[in-house]
């Protein structure tokens, strides 16, 4: 390779690539064990139905079938239900009722995957269909069927009410505001759809009593602890191995019934059992994202000074509340919805309801509901600009927080760490040639050009790096993360971390952090993750928390090693530790730089015959647990330019300009790749992705035939820019970034399309803005796309 490797931060090609480009990655379905059996799940065809009987006799009689497990089998083991990440329970295999189409009913274990599928066809289930709740807006109606009659005394479909902000102050501002605008909007149900589906390979060793589970989980340690709690196995006898993961995007945080079934299958048969779901199963039953029905209101002065925002949310959580978020935040971090603006006060109310759909909610790079929050405020800003007849860029510039206001406490209590918003927006506008674009648009409109042009903006503030353990835990597990660094005698290092890459490049960037702090080459640092027997406890990778939490842990543990090395160096050099100074890779005597020892020499001495100072045991290693003092708040300014054909409703994304600020960039190449991927998500959500349901609860987006993902054809060549505003509380000044583009971009695309449709007097239309939906909006015939009701 021609490029040189940086010693620390900077563009460095990825270590992971060598195996992936040769087909030598190891994803869960690549793992084969001696005697391994295959599992398959029988799923419910109904959205809501009572189970009268399950007859497995014909399936059991099929040659090659080793076991058929039903809800009844699991009930005997106390495993028919499992706890969710929201302290609800979820059926592993249904015993009483099915509550969404695609729900797990029975599990077959067979000699190969083909026989297992054959056997599913032979299971007879007698269902008594029940009326279902599909439209969340009807879930709390008096007459609505009660979905969760399994919960003691439950007589309705209500899950929770939650609020944040100052209600009285907000109402007072709204009462006297010069301008008030209200807008209903739906952030439709979508799915993260990682290219690799979920699956698990469970191997219970009856002799040692040890359970090993290979599973593409984003949070292997949390899975181990939960398995221990659920299955009653001791935690030291459970090993979770998260191998290479073919993308996660939040869809691989929680525990799915298939994982538990594979474990039970292995315990029952005494053989390793592999379960891999199909794409349709993945879309139907694993964690969905969004599904927020929001009514947002914004209060402002006549000249466009925003004063207050209030919002009511109806959150559709599906049949079991399995939403993944810190315990104290049932609506995640939605209450950052005041966004990037200097707003006096704000208030939100969120009500969660059950429906006859799959569980989920928090997934798909949402940073715990910040996708919804940013979409809300960025749509509201455009709606306000529309009402005031103001340019949306001017309106934003007028209201953005200024650099001297940081650290800034938001009206709902967030303490933004740092930012320089006007500079970032100005850069995006300059890159886009904003004024020229507006001139082109005006000219085209004046000329009566049939093809409509739209320019959309989004300015977002993220909140990532959950989080301070005082405030944030998942099922009681604090959100601090561990790191262990071991330097071998020859100066090569191994870093063990609790975060879990699913493509984000941790094996490269975490080596760069150690390299930067220790002054050795990143090629001399191996990063180990994903094996709970080998790595320190921590909560894994989601919410863009790897860099803020584990990245900080990696820097801090390396500094501990450096401090230890200083003591060893003082013994080697026969000077007091205080007489030593650090230059990258070396401790040397102050004022006598020639007299020193490199980290490699110190590593050897640490394992060698040098008389070590008091309190230094030898070897060169350290551990640490990093409890972040705050989240990090990256931000960005996005501009999207679209062309819309009013006769077909077809939207073409002509350009997309994205300026991101995530503080210090450990590896700019990887940051850019993260942003590219997130921008494609934004185009997908804004223009094509939807999980719709018909009134019987049939899932209408349950394969890639209908659930559309952007291809290379729909994506433009992204235009990226950056500003750098470091996080003052983070050891290396770095903020998270992975989810920024997914969070920030949908509003830019939707704002662009609606900007194009402005001549038709259309203020808002819901995602996805497919050709038929855009065409209908132009015709004045909008539809509830989520319910497939025309």
């Amino acid at each position, binding site marked *: *390779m021609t*490029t040189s490797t940086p010693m620390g931060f900077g563009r460095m*090609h*990825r270590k*992971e*690539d*060598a*195996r*992936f*480009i*040769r*087909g*030598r*990655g*190891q*994803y869960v*379905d*690549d793992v*084969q064990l001696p005697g391994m059996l295959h599992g398959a799940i029988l799923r419910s065809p109904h959205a809501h139905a009572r189970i009268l009987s399950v007859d497995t006799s014909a399936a059991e009689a099929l040659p090659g079938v080793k076991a058929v497990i039903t809800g009844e089998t699991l009930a005997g083991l106390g495993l028919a239900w499992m706890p969710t990440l929201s302290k609800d329970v979820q059926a592993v295999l249904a015993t009483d009722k099915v509550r969404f189409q695609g729900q797990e009913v029975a599990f077959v274990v067979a000699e*190969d*995957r*083909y026989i297992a599928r054959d056997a599913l066809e032979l299971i007879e289930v007698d269902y008594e269909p029940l009326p279902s709740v599909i439209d969340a807006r009807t879930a709390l109606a008096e007459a609505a069927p009660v979905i969760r009659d399994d919960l003691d005394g439950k007589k309705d479909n209500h899950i929770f009410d939650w609020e944040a902000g100052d209600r009285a102050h907000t109402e007072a501002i709204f009462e006297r505001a010069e301008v008030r605008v209200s807008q209903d909007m739906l952030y439709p149900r979508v799915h993260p*759809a*990682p*290219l*690799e*589906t979920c699956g698990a390979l469970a191997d219970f060793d009856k002799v040692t009593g040890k359970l090993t589970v290979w599973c593409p989980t984003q949070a292997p340690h949390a899975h181990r602890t939960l398995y221990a709690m659920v299955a009653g196995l001791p935690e030291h006898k459970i090993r979770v191995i998260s191998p*290479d*993961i*073919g*993308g996660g*995007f939040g869809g691989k945080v929680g525990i799915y019934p298939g994982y538990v079934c594979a474990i039970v299958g292995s315990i029952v048969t005494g053989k390793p059992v592999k379960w891999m779901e*199909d*794409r*349709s199963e993945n879309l139907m039953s694993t964690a969905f994202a969004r599904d927020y029905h929001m009514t947002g209101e914004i209060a402002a002065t006549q000249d466009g000074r925003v004063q207050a925002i209030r919002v009511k949310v109806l959150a559709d959580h599906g049949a079991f509340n399995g939403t993944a978020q810190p315990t104290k935040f049932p609506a995640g971090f939605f209450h950052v919805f005041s966004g990037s603006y200097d707003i006096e006060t704000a208030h939100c109310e969120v009500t969660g309801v059950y429906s006859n759909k799959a569980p989920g909610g928090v997934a798909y790079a949402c940073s715990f509901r910040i996708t919804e929050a940013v979409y809300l405020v960025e749509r509201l800003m455009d709606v306000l600009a529309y009402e005031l007849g103001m340019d949306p860029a001017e309106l934003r510039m007028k209201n953005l927080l200024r650099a001297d206001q940081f650290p800034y406490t938001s009206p709902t209590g967030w303490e933004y760490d740092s930012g320089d918003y006007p500079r970032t927006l100005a850069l995006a506008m300059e890159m886009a040639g904003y004024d020229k674009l507006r001139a082109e648009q005006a000219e085209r409109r004046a000329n009566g050009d049939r093809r409509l042009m739209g320019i959309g903006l989004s300015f977002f503030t993220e909140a990532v790096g959950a989080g301070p353990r005082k405030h944030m835990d998942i099922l009681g597990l604090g959100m601090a993360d561990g790191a262990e660094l071991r330097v071998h005698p020859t100066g090569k290092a191994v870093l063990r971390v609790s975060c879990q890459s*699913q*493509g*984000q*490049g941790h094996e490269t960037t975490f080596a760069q952090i150690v390299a930067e702090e220790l002054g050795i080459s990143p090629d001399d640092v191996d990063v180990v993750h994903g094996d709970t027997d080998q790595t320190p406890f921590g909560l894994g990778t989601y919410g863009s928390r790897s860099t803020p939490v584990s990245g900080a842990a990696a820097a801090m543990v390396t500094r501990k090693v450096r401090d230890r090395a200083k003591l060893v160096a003082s013994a080697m050099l026969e000077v007091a530790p205080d007489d030593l100074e650090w230059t990258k890779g070396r401790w040397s005597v102050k004022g006598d730089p020639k007299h020193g020892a490199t980290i490699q020499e110190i590593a050897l001495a640490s394992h060698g015959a040098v008389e070590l100072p008091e309190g230094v045991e030898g070897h060169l290693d350290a551990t640490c647990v990093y409890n972040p003092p705050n989240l990090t708040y990256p931000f960005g300014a996005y501009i999207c330019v679209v062309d819309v054909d009013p006769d077909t409703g077809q939207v073409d994304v002509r350009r997309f300009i994205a300026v991101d600020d995530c503080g210090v960039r450990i590896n700019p*190449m*990887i940051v*850019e*790749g*993260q*942003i*590219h*991927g*997130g*921008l*494609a998500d934004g185009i997908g959500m804004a223009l094509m992705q939807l999980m719709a349901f018909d009134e019987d609860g049939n899932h209408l987006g349950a*394969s*890639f*035939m209908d659930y559309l*993902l952007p*291809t*290379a*054809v729909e*994506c433009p*060549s*992204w235009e990226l820019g950056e500003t750098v505003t470091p996080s003052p509380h983070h050891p290396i000044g770095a903020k998270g970034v992975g989810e920024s583009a997914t969070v920030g971009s949908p509003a830019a695309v939707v704002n662009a399309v609606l900007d194009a449709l402005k001549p038709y007097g259309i203020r808002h239309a819901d995602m996805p803005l497919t050709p038929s939906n855009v065409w209908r909006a132009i015709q004045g015939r909008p539809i509830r796309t989520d319910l497939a009701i025309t």
Partner: protein
Amino acid sequence: MPRITVTVDGVGYEEEVEPRLLLVHLLRDTLGKTGTPIGCDTTNCGACTVLMDGKSVKSCSVLAVQADGSEITTVEGLSANGVWHPMQRAFHEEHALQCGFCTPGMIIAAIDLVRTDPDPDDATIREGLEGNLCRCTGYCNIVRAVRRGAQEMGVNTP
């Protein structure tokens, strides 16, 4: 059960297979060629793309018996003596992969694209890779990699 002979990455195999066995499962489960993954069940994603007698096919949509007598190349057969194929090198250099799951199929599809158009422009590359979904990269770096790979293939191969 039918008996087939098939050459995969230069190695000849003779196997008894059920007629319904998919080529992708023959490769993965029977022959241990796990470098070719499965991403969907409706032939949309292209993760399982391999070359069959030099042309790209989605191996989830070919029966193993249909591959009887054919020569299959998977991503595992592209590098010789430890030297990466120019397209593999280009994917690495341009950061055209993240999780790596679409990468085997994407690289194979790109090689087939260059076979039909040795010097493709960006629009041709985007159209040519429409059958391959990627969830991580947003495609931009893939397009750059394919252009670079095509140029290097033109220089380096007869």
